[in-house]
């Protein structure tokens, strides 16, 4: 039985029916990780002992006739910025290289409570600051579709692991595209739900008002199932909304007949990689044939100001949220002759270059004068962007647009052409600014085997409907296969 080829729902069903055990499924996945992860470096910590224990518990529940939960025996991985009880949580930084939390992030806990089995932690850009997963202290992750390319980031390890068949579901965090862009690059499905849909408790923060947990899967059925488990109020996060969630799985099964779907226009399509433009046309066509009406939409304020706005908000907040790393209570410590010297040496040694620079930029933005003249206006423009979307979604049910303007980058582009990489956030960061649900959906591969994809966005808290749309497109385009990592070197090289 090739367990790694099963979807999460198939695994859970088999476990519940007794066709196989959670332990068997776990062992198969652990084995696959051990054999093949050396090629792509997507997993930074395996917690085999606790995983076996959790799997046995699920099996015991099944044997005793108890409900083992909707994700019974589904092995999963989480990005290394999710706090995990008893498992090292490093944010792939020297700063936290030996830090072991004593609690599970709410998202992790909800997965475990649903019967899923946590196997370990995945690679990421240091403190989620990057979009290539190259700045990790554990070394870069490679794209399982093409080892010469990056997997995207910052949740590159999670996306690569799902693509490689190491687990059917992995969790990432998305501040400006960190779940969806790597999902696009690795050819899997990634979702950033509405802000406030999933608790942020236990996620080492990048930016409080942008961060959101998101599932990465190989198909939308698993994604909806994960959403059913993950979404919900949490007394430990009062920015997580208290409304009663619908069944995402049920909604995902509904069609889109009669729905009105907008395709974004008015951006510089010429500068984009051609297959990604074609992907949008393809997706729109699928929608049309499923009975939806396709219209065009322009978002002038958003398209012009989103990136600037995003950088102001994200970096400003990062400078604040990363200030708690002072070498005193946890994390990397360096001695100093004075308190300030201790702070500076601990932070300088603990944080990597890019993190330090982003902290500095963020601090600059919030200082006197710049705050009043730049930061505050940016927060107003953020509201205008949210308003522009709210207005759009009065008339349409969803929006289709690019997630990344480019196919997966070659390795090392960060050093060569950093600007190109920043602009890569242009489409993905909008959903974070406006708090909207967004899905990066694979719609096939180029001739070279590189994944192509679209971004689907919906109105705030319209996550369920958006999953329905994704499901329709996926039915036509097919869900992406597991990357062929057995063939060393990946596709064509």
């Amino acid at each position, binding site marked *: 039985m090739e367990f790694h080829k099963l979807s999460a729902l198939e695994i859970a069903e088999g476990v519940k029916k007794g066709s196989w055990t959670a332990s068997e499924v776990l062992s198969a996945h652990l084995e696959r990780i051990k054999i093949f992860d050396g090629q792509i470096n997507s997993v930074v910590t395996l917690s085999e002992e606790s995983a076996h224990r959790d799997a046995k518990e699920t099996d015991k529940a099944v044997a005793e006739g108890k409900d083992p939960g909707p994700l019974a025996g589904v092995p999963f991985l989480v990005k290394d910025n999710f706090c995990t009880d008893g498992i090292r949580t490093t944010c792939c930084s020297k700063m936290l290289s030996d830090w072991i939390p004593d609690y599970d992030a709410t998202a992790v806990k909800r997965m475990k409570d649903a019967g899923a089995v946590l196997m370990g932690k995945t690679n990421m850009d240091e403190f989620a600051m990057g979009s290539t997963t190259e700045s990790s202290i554990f070394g870069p992750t490679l794209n399982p579709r093409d080892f010469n390319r990056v997997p995207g980031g910052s949740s590159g390890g999670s996306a690569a692991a799902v693509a490689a068949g190491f687990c059917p579901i992995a969790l990432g965090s998305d501040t400006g595209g960190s779940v969806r862009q790597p999902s696009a690059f690795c050819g899997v499905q990634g979702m950033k739900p509405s802000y406030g849909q999933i608790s942020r408790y236990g996620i*080492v923060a990048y930016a*409080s008002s942008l961060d959101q947990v998101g599932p990465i899967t190989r198909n939308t059925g698993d994604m909806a199932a994960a959403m059913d488990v993950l979404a919900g109020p949490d007394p*430990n996060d009062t920015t997580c909304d208290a409304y009663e969630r619908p069944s995402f799985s049920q909604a995902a099964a509904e069609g889109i007949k009669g729905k009105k779907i907008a395709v974004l226009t008015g951006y510089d399509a010429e500068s984009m990689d051609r297959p990604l433009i074609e992907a949008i046309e393809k997706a729109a066509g699928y929608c049309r044939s499923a009975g939806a009406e396709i219209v065009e939409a322009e978002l002038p304020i958003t398209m012009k100001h989103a990136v600037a706005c995003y950088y102001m908000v994200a970096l400003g907040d990062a400078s*604040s949220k990363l200030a708690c790393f002072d070498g005193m209570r946890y994390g990397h410590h360096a001695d100093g002759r004075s308190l300030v010297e201790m702070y500076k040496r601990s932070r300088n040694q603990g944080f990597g270059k890019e993190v330090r620079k982003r902290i500095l930029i963020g601090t600059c933005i919030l200082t006197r004068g710049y*705050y009043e003249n730049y930061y505050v206006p940016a927060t107003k423009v953020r509201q205008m962007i949210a308003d522009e979307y709210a207005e759009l979604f009065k008339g349409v049910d969803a929006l289709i647009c690019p997630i990344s303007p480019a196919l997966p980058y070659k390795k090392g582009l960060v050093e060569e052409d950093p600007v190109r990489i920043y602009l890569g956030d242009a489409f993905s960061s909008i959903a974070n600014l406006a708090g909207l649900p967004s899905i990066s959906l694979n719609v096939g591969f180029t001739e070279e085997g590189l994944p192509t994809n679209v971004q689907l966005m919906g109105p705030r808290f319209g996550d369920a409907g958006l999953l329905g749309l994704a499901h329709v497109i996926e039915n036509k385009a097919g869900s992406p296969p597991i990357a062929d990592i057995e063939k060393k070197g990946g596709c064509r090289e």
Partner: protein
Amino acid sequence: MKRESVIGLEIHLQLKTKTKLFCSCSSDYIGATPNTNVCPVCLAVPGTLPILNDHAVELGVKIGLGLHCSICDNTRFHRKHYFYADLPKAYQITQYEHPIAVGGYVDIFADGKEKRIRIHHLHLEEDAGKLVHPTADGRLTGASYSLVDYNRGGMPLSEIVSEPDMNSAEEAIAYITQIRQLARYLEVSDGEMESGSLRVDVNVSLSNPDGSLGTRVEIKNVNSLRSIERALEYEIARQNKVLDEGGHLVQETRLWDDVAGVTRSMRSKEGERDYRYYVEMDLAPISAGPEYVRKIRESLPEMPWEKLERFTREYSISREESLQLTEQKETADYFEACVSEGAPAAKCANWMRMEVQRILRDLSIGINDFPVPPAELGKLIIKVEKRELSNTQAKDVLAVMVEKKVSLKEAVRLCGISDGRITGPALEEVIRKIFASEQEAVETIKSGNDKKGAKVKFLQGLVMRETRGSADPAEVASLVNCMLN
């Protein structure tokens, strides 16, 4: 040239909640082992988020209403950034641009007149941890290292910022006293400067000859009413002297040195500090809508100034007496419980102010620890009214009640006073005894030689003394006369 001193105060009140402002750690930190009232939230453990304490908001609104402020709905918290060992997140969560209560006032009585002090605003914020410096005097200067205790970190504070409406140390003290009284009445804070649940920063400047405000100096480290008074007097004199000598004042923060009795410049470039305030997005806006505020307003107890006014009116006692009785809510409650037993208010007031106060002072206890229940004191006062006890006896009885923690009845017995008055046969017995020992006087009267009745009065007086006032003088007179005939 006489310049007017202009004083504004920032009062930090530690709110009387069971838990901290943003986490479920116990607020009962005084005397606790260091770093035991802590949790991942107040230690700024990665991944944790602040969760606002509902009760802290309620207490903030309460005191805001007590200060006649408008309560604002959907106000925000901000982050105030600076690195320091007592601040785990390297930012303090505080209300900056949008405080929960704005624009109130409080009336004070100082320098012999009533004055209204305007409140600029009241906001909520978290406290910092505590540093212990291993130096002889416990101060930072000279310490080669410091120890950090986060037990206090995250405690809820409400900061009350006045307008610069005070012009003398006496007014400042009256203002603080009034706020403290209000906080205690509303059970919002203990308001104790000694334990740090009430802390004051003083802003003082001298007005220019044209009436405009002069350079403002902030004084910190004033830890008692007395040191505030001294610090203000010193600082006002210092500023006058600098200006008199043609010098210039700098806007700065100065520390009060209680031992030396001087303020000293902190010499830090305070003006250059940039706290980078911005909205705390880990917390939702604080909802405090009209309905919420109405409920709290309806739950408010009688304010101290209302009580003062009512006592004076209802009990026909002087303003001075009312002031003393209403200074503490507990004292006022005790007084009213006494009165409700049926004891005359004026007498109760007198007993409370004289006897009870004296005992409390002697024992160094508060009214809450006074062992005599108000109903018992009320009954005692009634006994005096009914002449069942003399004043002297009643004081003895009260002393026994306090000392032995016994009931009125038991105390009366222990004092050797039978229950109630000495009357009838018991009184006749006493009189016979007196007659027996004063036969000469009796003979004088019986022989008709007591023309002016002096001997009869003498015998009556002896009876009264023997009964320690427990006999009715009229009955004594009639019985003595009757038994002589």
